[in-house]
């Protein structure tokens, strides 16, 4: 009998170093008005505690029971196809109403905001997984919901929009050329998650009873996602704990959810597990970004956090990377990478989709493009192990299904899918716009 965890795992209890403090934007001297909280205290408490286990509120636990524990399966058909000696396990998070792991934090956040008196939540979403999860969670906790969806995905994935509306959310493209910051600047572009979050934040500031909810990089969002890794550890049992844990990296909740409970064991000296974050080659913050202070969204007024970043104005050239499009990596995952606790890899888009298609044909589940990054990482790890003559246990998070992503798979099948590498010049130009203090980038 596998139990749904009653607690989330907090890696802050185990890291042997201090996280770099956030730097708030200077508060204007001519603005003496009252300081208005934008976040429920419960989420602040969860972000600050150093307790290793953070209790899951009863009402959230009851919601979790409607789809958890999620299946952990061994990918035997994939192993046979590869001819590998590695044992490949995957934790499937696509079987809930939203179709992805994002529902873990969406439920927890909706409960906190509802308890704090919010009546409406707004958010930005990339491919729509987070927006869908928040729509589902808002419905469960009696909140209205508005989703600012990255324009490229909004137009390319109309049925993702439909399912969010089905669950009761209002969905608009970001940038919306008719409203908000984009109109003020006269900007028209494909959009990115940082910009969508900025537009959502402007909405929250101007509507009574409305608050912004974000789904990935915040410490509490990663904390809520650790039920994935905690369950997997119990399901694998003491006899076959993983040697390698792999997750896709957007801002951090996907990778952190599966990997941090295992990274904690490594930090405590209980295992020598390798944790590998797989990011999109077209948004390579950990593998090619800079570890420095940057904005967490595109507003230019958010607090500065020290993290691996490509610059908050970075826009991917294209490609089907969905929620991996965020310009930076959460400060916790960034610090763990900086200190050598977790590794990172990036692969070309056609290789990612080839692995996604192979997984669908062998295991019978079509991975979301984000999840296909983890699939590819696991296949690469198995191949490297075979070359080295080892037979590790590999665990990865199949974070969501790809049934809303068939247009991208169609492109793959038609042979028209292109590689979308990022040039050094693109990265240099974006990093040149990093925030500065006293004329210098903030290191």
């Amino acid at each position: 009998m596998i139990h749904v965890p009653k607690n989330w795992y907090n890696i802050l209890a185990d890291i042997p170093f201090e996280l770099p403090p956030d730097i708030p934007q200077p508060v204007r001297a001519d603005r003496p008005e009252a300081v208005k909280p934008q976040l429920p205290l419960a989420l602040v408490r969860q972000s600050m505690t150093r307790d290793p286990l953070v209790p899951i509120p009863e009402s959230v636990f009851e919601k979790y029971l409607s789809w958890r524990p999620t299946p952990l399966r061994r990918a035997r058909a994939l192993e046979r196809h590869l001819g590998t000696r590695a044992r490949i396990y995957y934790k499937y998070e696509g079987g809930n109403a939203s179709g992805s792991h994002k529902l873990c934090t969406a439920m927890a956040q909706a409960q906190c905001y509802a308890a704090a008196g919010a009546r409406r939540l707004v958010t930005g979403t990339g491919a729509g997984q987070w927006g869908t999860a928040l729509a589902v969670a808002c419905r469960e906790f009696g909140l209205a919901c508005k989703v600012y969806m990255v324009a490229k995905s909004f137009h390319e994935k109309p049925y993702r929009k439909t399912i969010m509306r089905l669950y009761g959310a209002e969905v608009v493209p970001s940038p919306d050329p008719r409203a908000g910051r984009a109109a003020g600047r006269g900007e028209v572009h494909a959009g990115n998650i940082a910009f969508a979050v900025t537009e959502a934040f402007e909405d929250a500031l101007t509507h009574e009873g409305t608050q912004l909810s974000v789904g990935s990089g915040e410490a509490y969002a990663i904390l809520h996602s650790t039920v994935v890794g905690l369950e997997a550890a119990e399901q694998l049992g003491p006899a076959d704990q993983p040697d390698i844990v792999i997750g896709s990296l957007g801002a951090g909740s996907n990778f952190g959810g599966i990997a941090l409970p295992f990274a904690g064991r490594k930090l405590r000296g209980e295992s020598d597990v390798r944790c590998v974050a797989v990011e999109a080659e077209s948004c390579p913050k950990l593998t090619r970004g800079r570890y420095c202070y940057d904005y967490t969204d595109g507003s230019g007024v958010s607090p500065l956090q020290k993290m691996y970043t490509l610059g908050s104005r970075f826009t991917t050239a294209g490609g089907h990377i969905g929620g991996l499009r965020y310009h930076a990596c959460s400060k916790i995952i960034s610090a763990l990478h900086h200190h050598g606790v977790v590794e990172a890899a990036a692969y070309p888009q056609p290789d990612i989709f080839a692995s996604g298609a192979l997984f669908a044909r062998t295991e019978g589940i079509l991975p979301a493009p984000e999840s296909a990054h983890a699939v590819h990482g696991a296949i690469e790890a198995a191949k490297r192990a075979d070359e080295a003559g080892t037979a590790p246990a590999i665990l990865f998070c199949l974070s969501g299904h790809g049934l809303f992503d068939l247009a991208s798979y169609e492109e793959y099948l038609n042979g028209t899918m292109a590689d979308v590498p990022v040039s050094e010049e693109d990265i240099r130009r974006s990093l040149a716009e990093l925030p500065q203090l006293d004329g210098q980038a903030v290191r």
Partner: protein
Amino acid sequence: MEPRTKHPSRADLRATVVSALLSAKAGPPGTAATVDDETPIGGAGLGISSLNMLQALVRIEDDLGVAFGDRAVAEADLRSVGAVVDLVEQMLAERDE
């Protein structure tokens, strides 16, 4: 564990509040000795952001054994150090009722 019934003095509460506010704020440490009830929280005063404020309240919860409610915080007009001290006194009184 003995029940907490004896309230700290207002001066002690102010010292606790100011210490929590300044430690939550990143950057150069402030000068607590120059802070009084009228000192603004944001703007030209302590320059505290809304997130810093919430982090400070969580520190105060740990220090004093109180629990702030979101609605009470949202309804409080947290313009000055004195307003935060008022909120803490209110929470202490409610705790001990």
